[in-house]
């Protein structure tokens, strides 16, 4: 019996430990859900913001940019782009992308958005900027 190390004990601990930590994770997630309304500004999610999020997704913006730090790391963070450029600056930037890119530089495609779509995108980015994300990013450069 000295120095017992049995497979059945190792197995039981695997199952028990997994269930235990998954339940703990669920409990924390549950608490998160009760706290989120204070942080995610959901009361400001208008149809325009929803439209902006959809445009963000179907044009795969996350394939180059980051949003609250998540995404690709090829192009600037956009969670706070409103702070850097302002509403009109963002719209002007997106509108003015040359169709064939800028020679030698990382280029953003020309998406041919309507003014309404541009407003929706800005509304979405403004909403993201308003979310309480523990003061990230460290500065306005993103």
């Amino acid at each position, binding site marked *: *019996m*000295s*120095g*017992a*190390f*049995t497979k059945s*004990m*190792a197995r039981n*601990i695997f199952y*028990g*430990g997994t269930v*235990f930590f998954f*339940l*703990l994770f669920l*409990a924390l997630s549950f*608490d998160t859900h*009760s*706290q989120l309304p*204070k942080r995610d500004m959901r009361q400001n999610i208008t149809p325009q913001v929803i439209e902006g999020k959809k445009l963000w997704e179907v044009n795969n913006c996350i394939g180059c940019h980051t949003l609250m730090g998540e995404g690709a790391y090829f192009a600037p963070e956009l969670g706070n782009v409103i702070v850097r450029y302002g509403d009109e600056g963002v719209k002007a930037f997106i509108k003015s992308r040359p169709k064939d890119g800028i020679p030698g530089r990382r280029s953003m495609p020309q998406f041919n958005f309507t003014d309404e779509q541009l407003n929706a995108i800005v509304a979405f980015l403004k909403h993201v900027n308003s979310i309480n994300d523990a003061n990230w990013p460290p500065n306005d450069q993103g």
Partner: protein
Amino acid sequence: MSESSPITNQAAASTKRLPGDLAIWFFIMAEMVAFAVFFSAYAFTRAGHVEMFNLYQQTLDRNLGALNTVLLITGSWFIVLAVQAAHRDDQKAISRNILLGFLCGGGFLAVKIIEYSAKFGAGISMSTNTFYMFYISLTFFHFMHVILGMVILAVLWFQSRKGVYGSHDANGLESGAAYWHMVDLLWIVLFPLVYVMR
């Protein structure tokens, strides 16, 4: 080894053997590391906000905490008795002591729920401030461990009723007992750290 006295020899021999299964000791080590890191995080953060921590520490109910300490230590004692009973094949005493240990755990949970309902009733949550973040995280993480420990004790109790444990095989019982002692030990660190130390 010198032949000084039979008692020290016996003690030396018994320390050679790790009670319970090696697998449970890996689990216990992992859990203790997680708690140790959590405790250190508490200590370092407290060092930076001593006044705030002291202020909110006074809102905790030390009497309930002390009662819970007694309950867990008593629970551990019953489990020690159960393991000893197994080694002398006293089947009735094994089951009885596991059950008593289980009841101590239940008492702990009841007291903790009283304590929590007062805190949560006052609108306190993990997001209230850093002190309460640690207080709730640590005690709730430990609370879940007491529940897990009680589940293990319940399994041990059912098994002991079938006469599984005895001097021939106490591996399962010793493993569960080791885990239960860990739950106790963690509380003995947690209680002074969060409730008492100023």
